[in-house]
């Protein structure tokens, strides 16, 4: 009788419906690195080692781990169990399901937005703007402005989350920007091509959630203009005036996307007109 090896999981072949779920139990992988992760996920004693009969059930894998279009459930080789690995409360959920309620770190962050929704929404927004405005330059400017407005608000959140201090030079700022990319867009740009005076650098990335699945019209549209806008807005809030522009763009056929950031001046705090 197959039984799930995850220690808090009560799924065995008596509970799980084979016909409905396809093959719900997966044997441990061969790759030693991935196997180790599976063993960690079971929550068992480190000395425990799976035999060829030990399995983990499907409820611990995210939907993306399953190979699509297969009648029998089959995992991709890289799959690692991430869901429902710890027990929080005992809870009778009805006779047919497992009697334990689970949660995982991933389930907890339920405010995390699906990146595909972001991609599609941004695409729809841009195409809507193109429809309403004839002039591509206007769209670029609008996108930059939207980004700017986002940046102005985002910096507050960034400072609160990372509790970072004031940057003393551009290199620190570049690190912070890199961190922000990781935090908000889950992407990893590299910081390169410093100018000799240290006031200009490039952010280079080859994958961006905003620009997936995009077909570009051939009219000078800067699809990702949101990003330089956000950087400009955020840095303006910490008294840094910068200029941001695209040098290369994947969407226009370049190998990578390169965003150039140039320091212009430090902004001084000024009292708004009309307020003493």
């Amino acid at each position: 009788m197959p039984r799930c090896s995850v220690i808090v999981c009560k799924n065995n072949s008596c509970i799980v419906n084979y016909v409905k779920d396809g093959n719900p139990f997966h044997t441990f992988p061969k790759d030693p690195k991935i196997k180790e992760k599976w063993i960690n996920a079971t929550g068992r004693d480190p000395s425990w080692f799976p035999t060829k009969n030990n399995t983990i059930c499907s409820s611990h894998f995210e939907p993306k781990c399953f190979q699509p279009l297969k009648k029998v459930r089959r995992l991709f080789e890289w799959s690692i169990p991430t869901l429902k690995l710890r027990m929080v409360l005992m809870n009778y959920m009805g006779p047919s399901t497992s009697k334990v309620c689970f949660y995982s770190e991933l389930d907890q962050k339920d405010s995390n937005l699906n990146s595909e929704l972001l991609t599609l929404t941004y695409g729809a927004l841009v195409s809507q703007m193109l429809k309403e405005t004839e002039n591509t330059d206007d769209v670029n400017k609008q996108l930059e402005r939207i980004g700017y407005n986002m940046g102005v608000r985002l910096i507050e959140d960034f400072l609160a989350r990372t509790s970072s201090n004031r940057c003393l030079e551009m290199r620190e700022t570049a690190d912070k920007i890199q961190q922000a990319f990781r935090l908000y867009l889950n992407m990893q740009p590299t910081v390169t091509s410093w100018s000799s005076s240290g006031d200009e650098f490039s952010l280079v990335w080859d994958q961006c959630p905003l620009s997936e699945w995009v077909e570009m019209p051939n009219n000078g549209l800067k699809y990702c203009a949101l990003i330089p806008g956000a950087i400009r807005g955020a840095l303006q809030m910490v008294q840094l005036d910068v200029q941001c522009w695209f040098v290369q763009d994947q969407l226009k056929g370049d190998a990578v996307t390169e965003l150039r950031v140039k320091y212009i001046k430090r902004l001084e705090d000024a009292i708004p007109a009309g307020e003493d």
Partner: protein
Amino acid sequence: MSSSRSKSSILDKPLSKGKGEVSLALSDIGHDVGTRLLDLYFVRERNSKREIKLLNMLLFVKSTLWKVLFGKEADKLEHANDDERTYYIIEKDALVNKFISVPKDKGSLNCATFNAGIIEAVLTKGGFPAKVTAHWHKGTTYMVKFDDAVIARDKSLDDR
């Protein structure tokens, strides 16, 4: 140049003309998104099999779709007492209404119109033509009104 720009820019234009156009634009954008999501998630979550039953389709929207999009299911799915064509999907805190302060002069603008657009596209393109509107009621309520033909077809499926 600058005056013509501000006139034609999308952000200024609809707002200056009133909330009707903003809602329309939002629902259009939602439509775009919903259309693309439909196939993506049926392939990924449902083994490429579309739903043919009305209730299952609504449950797909309420549970599966909402779960992958927003990380949580919509709170409730209700059937109107007085009209069999009307269903309500209710969500307490809609993500798109977070951090939003509606301008005073546009009191009835609801950003959830965007979600309503998504639902409408998913249902309509999935073969259940419907009109979906968003309302402020118990949080955010999406009112789904199906075409008569959809209800009739669903009944005939039941009879078989």
